[in-house]
């Protein structure tokens, strides 16, 4: 196994470097074919997204792949050794497996747990397969990485909860209303934040929009953008009753919706719930409204709090995901190791068996006629000795898989036991 991975990511490089080094999708296929055609490179995988470029390669046994990869980076990724070297990270063998698994699980993402990376990884894998750049060990590892990514998604809650304020608001709305289909949103005070929150809600299915603002023209503008209706600011309380979700961000120093007003509003709604998202400071909605039946009031601090709790949960889940990754890395390495060592082990055993038979043959005359029990003992004795002799070198070779001196050790063992063809 001779795996090398070189890459840059949000952790190692600023966006200027990342965008410079990213490889456009249209050139991916040609780049992959080119790379595997180069001397010393058997397989390659290129993952290029806006946050990272990872270039993994399986090199010929005993050949240094790094210079080839550097050359390739310079040609395809506009890599400049003097300026970019400190942004690159390099991994070898076992660390390549671990890195690819972590990337696929979104543990190495800028926002840990963001779900897109697994899809992007799959695209990279498919592109490499189509270009004929995956044929052996790297293909296995890539497929395993996708499987691990799916496992983490299945078994942990990593990436399951909202970690931004506006998305947290959407999630809360969903927990109240189930579907947002057919729900009415009232945007009270047309600001940037409320616009953003409204956009999230609309893209989640909310259908009708009402907008009120002190400057009516601004309300009309925003209403037009969402295909909604503008409402006079003084008339707000009359229209508020139709709203299921209220996003409030006026500059008003006093409460726009007092407890008494909310009580009146809710009375006319036949117990249908109302969700107030109050992102104004000072607040627009009297917090006491939350005490009323069917009213749920979240101000900006409440939303931040939800986000914080979600982030904490995400960190816990990330720790669980790391454990899964470690487990899978170990399993994959063991599998690769036994597969890679299999021919050597078989050759060793055949060699020993050959010696054993020849020796028994040689001493047959001197041993004379043996009873079946005696013959069995001789067989068991010789077999036992040989398997004990081989046990040491085989375990040693297995334990060094993925390490730097592994291939040297394997060839040493082969030479020592005379199985070098």
């Amino acid at each position, binding site marked *: 196994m001779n795996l090398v991975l070189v890459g840059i990511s949000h952790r190692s490089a600023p966006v200027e470097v990342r965008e410079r080094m990213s490889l456009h999708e249209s050139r991916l296929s040609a780049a992959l074919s080119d790379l595997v055609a180069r001397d010393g490179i058997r397989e390659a995988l290129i993952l290029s997204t806006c946050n990272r470029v990872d270039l993994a390669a399986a090199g010929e046994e005993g050949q240094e792949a790094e210079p080839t990869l550097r050359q390739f980076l310079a040609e395809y990724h506009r890599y400049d050794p003097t300026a970019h070297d400190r942004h690159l990270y390099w991994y070898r063998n076992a660390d390549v497996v671990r890195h690819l698994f972590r990337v696929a699980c979104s543990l190495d993402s800028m926002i840990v747990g963001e779900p897109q990376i697994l899809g992007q990884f799959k695209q990279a894998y498919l592109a490499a397969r189509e270009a004929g750049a995956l044929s052996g060990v790297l293909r296995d590892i890539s497929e395993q990485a996708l499987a691990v990514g799916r496992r983490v998604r299945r078994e942990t*809650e990593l990436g*399951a*909860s909202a970690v931004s304020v506006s998305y947290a608001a959407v999630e*809360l709305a*969903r*927990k*109240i*209303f*189930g579907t947002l289909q057919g729900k009415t949103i009232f945007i009270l005070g047309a600001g940037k934040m409320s616009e953003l929150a409204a956009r999230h809600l609309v893209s989640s299915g909310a259908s009708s929009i009402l907008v009120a603002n002190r400057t009516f023209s601004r309300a009309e503008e925003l209403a037009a953008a969402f295909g909604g209706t503008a409402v006079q600011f003084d008339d707000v309380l009359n229209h508020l009753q139709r709203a299921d979700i209220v996003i409030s961000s006026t500059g008003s120093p006093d409460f726009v919706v007092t407890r008494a007003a909310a009580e009146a509003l809710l009375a006319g709604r*036949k*117990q*249908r*719930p109302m969700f107030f998202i109050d992102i104004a400071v000072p607040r627009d909605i009297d917090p006491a409204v*939350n005490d009323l*039946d*069917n009213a*749920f009031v*979240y101000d900006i601090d*409440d939303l931040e*709090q*939800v986000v914080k*709790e*979600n982030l904490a*949960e995400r960190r816990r889940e990330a720790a669980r995901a790391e454990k899964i990754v470690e487990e899978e890395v170990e399993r994959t390495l063991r599998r690769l190791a036994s597969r890679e060592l299999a021919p050597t082990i078989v050759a060793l055993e055949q060699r020993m068996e050959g010696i054993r038979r020849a020796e028994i043959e040689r001493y047959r005359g001197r041993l004379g006629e043996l009873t079946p029990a005696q013959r069995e003992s001789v067989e068991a004795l010789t077999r036992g000795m040989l398997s004990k002799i081989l046990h040491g070198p085989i375990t040693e070779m297995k334990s060094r898989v993925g390490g730097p001196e592994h291939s040297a050790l394997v060839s040493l063992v082969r030479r020592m036991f005379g199985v070098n063809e």
Partner: protein
Amino acid sequence: MLLWIALGLYGLGILFTLPSVASRRPALPRSALIALCCGLALHGAWLGMAAARLQRLPVTDVHSAISFFAFDLTLAFLIIYLRYRLVWLGLFMLPFVFLLALAAALEAGPSFDSASFRGGWVAVHVASMFLGYTGFFITFAAALMYLIQERQLKSKHVRPLYQRLPPLEVCDRLYYRSLIFGNIFLALGLVTGFVWASRTWTGPWQYDPKILATLVTWLIYLVLFSARASGTWPGRRSAYGAIFGFAAVMVTFLGVTFLSGQHGFLPRP
């Protein structure tokens, strides 16, 4: 035997359901669904065979009536699961189903049967009653889920249950629909019961404790229904009402049985 296998399958279904209760993805594992469906099918076969043997719906002795109730509940859970994907409802319902099925399977003695329990009216009466109870049990479970979810949303903290319980409006819809369903069948059960009693019972059957208790229960649910239909009660009060209502069902179903002569479900000397 069939019932024991069905019971085992229900048990397996519950076991397979447990991991998905902890996860937030609203899906039962395939193994749980298969176990529950097979259990339901065997249970249905058992009921079918009993029906063929008795030449009528096997609900007129305690043993098969409880078994029928368990069957109803499982079927209701699966239908609701297909519609709403409420894994958590299973957490409330399936253990109850298991206990009922266990009770039915354990009651191995010769099933109680008497001449007065023959006839179509009584079968329809008992079956409707149990369908009504099934509806109210789901109303009860929906109310519990509503209360927990509502409290969490009001508290403004993301607790583990928050992600796992259904949205408020889904709880509410389930509440209302199961309430209507339960009311219809309870009414049907009462009417058929009256017809049957007036034909076969002797003496002032109107004063049977079980009948009176059931009437009270039905009144409670009528109030709940009208409150929910007109939107006069807030969700929380309705939910508490449903819990109270189900307590009344339990009293009616279990408690009063022992006081009642005609509904004692015991062979009279």
